[in-house]
């Protein structure tokens, strides 16, 4: 085990990165160490990258290994908005510090040089301009060039310690000896640092190709003012899209607040189009009135983040008699409903190849299904319920052993007598899938003679804890029974586990209610 990252206190004790844990503990017995969590670190870095979007439109993740992660911000043409480069750096530092994020910031003409200065110059804030670039990084160690381990070792053998040592050496010799291994070779890294070779940054959020921006002389505070600007913005965007024969599949309205933050509204459009009236309506459904301008918006941008080719269609000479005048298409309806209720609330069932009932169907946002027309749900030829309980609810059953259908069962506290039953339909677990059935949450229903409706707000408790133990073996064989009680109500029950296979599974077979037939 090695140290991956340290805080200031540890550094003051003389510990360093990549030091063996045992060595570190020998130096500092009171060392508190926690396992590294690269996934969470990456998540945090991404969140920070999103936040840094307030400084520059081009923010790239720097995923250098070994605890050297960082962010690249391309601030070309941006710094004047923050009062110049120095002012920008100090504001950046101040705000990161206020957020509790220790940082080192370097500003240099190339990403490579900035990387080197931030990590190896030892200064909290450093700045290099192009005139001093060559001299500025000459004194830094070779590791500042982002070389891989093999190249670094080789350089140490040659007695090369600092970047400046390389300047005098012939390039051809260097290129021959230091080849590209895991990373880029020494010469290329040197060229990148000195700006002789391009180093492209991959921004976290690529800039939208289609974008209409409106700047205001005075911050706009009221919603009416913002709404008044929208038709013009939408028309501008639609014109750009029309020029290229494309339609918007995802729209984003961004309001830039005068205090430096943004407010965004995103709308998804199932079938891409460029009808501004519908765009505006979708934005309104999505909650345009909830867009908080704070102390006012300086600028508004409407961008089409995702587009798709759209061909213009000639309008019909005669109105379609089957559709009422002004009728929407299903896709437009789905867009409208999804904009207000959320994509997950407007769905269609899509079949999935699985025989486990709860996995045999997936709810997919209606917009996706309509876009990929032809995903027709396949009703099963076997009896399947109309309403499925998710998760299944426990029932108490009286049934003959080992596998007769239930004779009586108690579900939601009401005892029901089975008049007729069909089954079992035996479903073996899909052994290639890891099954984990969720624990049912409720059983607390009120029994009353005439009215069987479960009372609301009863507080669901009880069954969950009792069944916690039984749920473990949910990768067991299920026997499904379609039963009908004496009133004609039809239920879908299953028994999990088999009585004659008790020796393999230590758990007692249990009964569950999975669905209701009409």
């Amino acid at each position, binding site marked *: 085990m090695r140290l991956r990252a340290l805080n200031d206190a540890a550094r003051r004790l003389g510990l360093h990165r990549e030091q063996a844990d045992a060595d570190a503990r020998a130096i500092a017995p009171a060392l508190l160490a926690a396992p590294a969590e690269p996934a969470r670190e990456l998540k945090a870095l991404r969140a920070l990258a999103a936040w840094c979007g307030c400084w520059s439109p081009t923010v790239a993740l720097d995923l250098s290994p070994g605890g050297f992660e960082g962010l690249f911000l391309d601030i070309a043409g941006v710094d004047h908005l923050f009062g110049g480069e120095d002012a920008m750096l100090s504001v950046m530092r101040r705000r990161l510090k206020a957020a509790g994020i220790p940082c080192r910031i370097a500003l240099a003409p190339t990403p490579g040089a900035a990387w080197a200065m931030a990590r190896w110059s030892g200064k909290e804030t450093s700045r290099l301009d192009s005139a001093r670039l060559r001299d500025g990084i000459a004194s830094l160690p070779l590791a500042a060039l982002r070389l891989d381990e093999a190249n670094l070792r080789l350089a140490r053998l040659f007695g090369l310690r600092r970047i400046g040592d390389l300047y005098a050496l012939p390039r051809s010799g260097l290129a021959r000896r230091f080849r590209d291994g895991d990373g880029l070779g020494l010469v290329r890294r040197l060229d990148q640092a000195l700006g002789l070779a391009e180093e492209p940054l991959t921004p976290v959020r690529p800039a939208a190709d289609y974008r209409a921006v409106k700047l205001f002389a005075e911050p706009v505070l009221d919603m009416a003012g913002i709404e008044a600007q929208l038709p013009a913005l939408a028309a501008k965007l639609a014109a750009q899209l029309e020029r290229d024969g494309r339609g918007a599949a995802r729209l984003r309205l961004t309001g830039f607040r005068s205090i430096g933050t943004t407010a965004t509204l995103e709308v998804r459009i199932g079938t891409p189009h460029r009808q501004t009236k519908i765009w505006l309506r979708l934005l309104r459904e999505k909650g345009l009135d909830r867009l908080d301008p704070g102390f006012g918006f300086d600028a508004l941008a409407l961008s089409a983040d995702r587009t798709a080719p759209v061909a213009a269609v000639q309008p019909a000479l005669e109105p379609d008699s089957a559709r009422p005048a002004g009728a929407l298409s299903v896709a437009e309806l789905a867009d409208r409903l999804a904009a207000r209720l959320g994509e997950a609330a407007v769905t269609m069932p899509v079949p999935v190849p699985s025989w486990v009932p709860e996995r045999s169907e997936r709810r997919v946002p209606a917009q996706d299904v309509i876009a990929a027309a032809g995903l027709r749900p396949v009703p099963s030829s076997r009896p399947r319920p109309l309403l499925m309980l998710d998760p299944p609810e426990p029932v108490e059953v009286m049934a003959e052993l080992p596998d007769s259908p239930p004779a009586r069962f108690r579900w939601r506290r009401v005892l029901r007598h089975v008049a007729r039953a*069909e089954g079992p339909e035996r479903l073996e677990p899909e052994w290639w899938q890891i099954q984990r059935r969720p624990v049912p949450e409720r059983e607390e229903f009120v029994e009353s003679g005439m009215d069987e409706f479960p009372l609301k707000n009863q507080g669901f408790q009880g069954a969950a804890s009792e069944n916690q133990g039984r749920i473990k073996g949910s990768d067991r064989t299920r026997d499904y029974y379609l039963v009908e009680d004496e009133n004609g109500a039809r239920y879908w029950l299953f028994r999990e586990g088999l009585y004659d296979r008790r020796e393999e599974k230590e758990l007692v077979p249990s009964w569950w209610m999975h669905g209701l037939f*009409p």
Partner: protein
Amino acid sequence: MEAVSVRVPLHSPYPQHPDTLEEACAENFRAMAATLCFALSRLPADGRPAVICMTAAQTHEYGRIFGRGTIWARHFPLLLVEPRKAIEALWAAEQALRSGAVAGVAIAVDDLTLTQTRRLEFAARHGGASAMTVLTRPGGLTAARRRWRIRPAPSAPNPFDARAPGSLRIAAELVRSRTEPPALFMLEQDDETHRLRLADRLAGHGLVEAGRTVAAA
């Protein structure tokens, strides 16, 4: 077998065509699946899709719609709308009805005011669609043209296994209508087309008179 006590005139036909707004009330909690099935089957089959609105709380209570179990449905696609609040479900239903994109909407609600039913009715008329409100208890004043009371009925005998349930049957009682007298109809799933049809169409008008359907069964 259940004795049927309602006596109705023999020639009251089953209203095949749905009106703009009808109400289907589940007799009890267990009748919810039958009521939804009835409501969907009553929506006009004109090639347009249908919408089912159920709030998340109702889904939790009654179960969620399972597409594989809708073999009797005549609509494709089935658009499932599952908002959080009842008021959003009403909004979604109104939008869908008014849009003209769907044949009809089945909306499960706990309670409806007269104004809300009026709005649904207007929206349905505007979009050339039908709305079925699925209630769990009899509602008050309503703009619905027909009010149905639904309960599951013991299924038809299974020709292959006397102990197993046969094709599904639903007892639909027309409680109130502007144009027809009250009547009780027995609907049955056709074993070939899987659609709902009157249980004893050949024998008469599907009306249950003094348990005739039961005798035929």
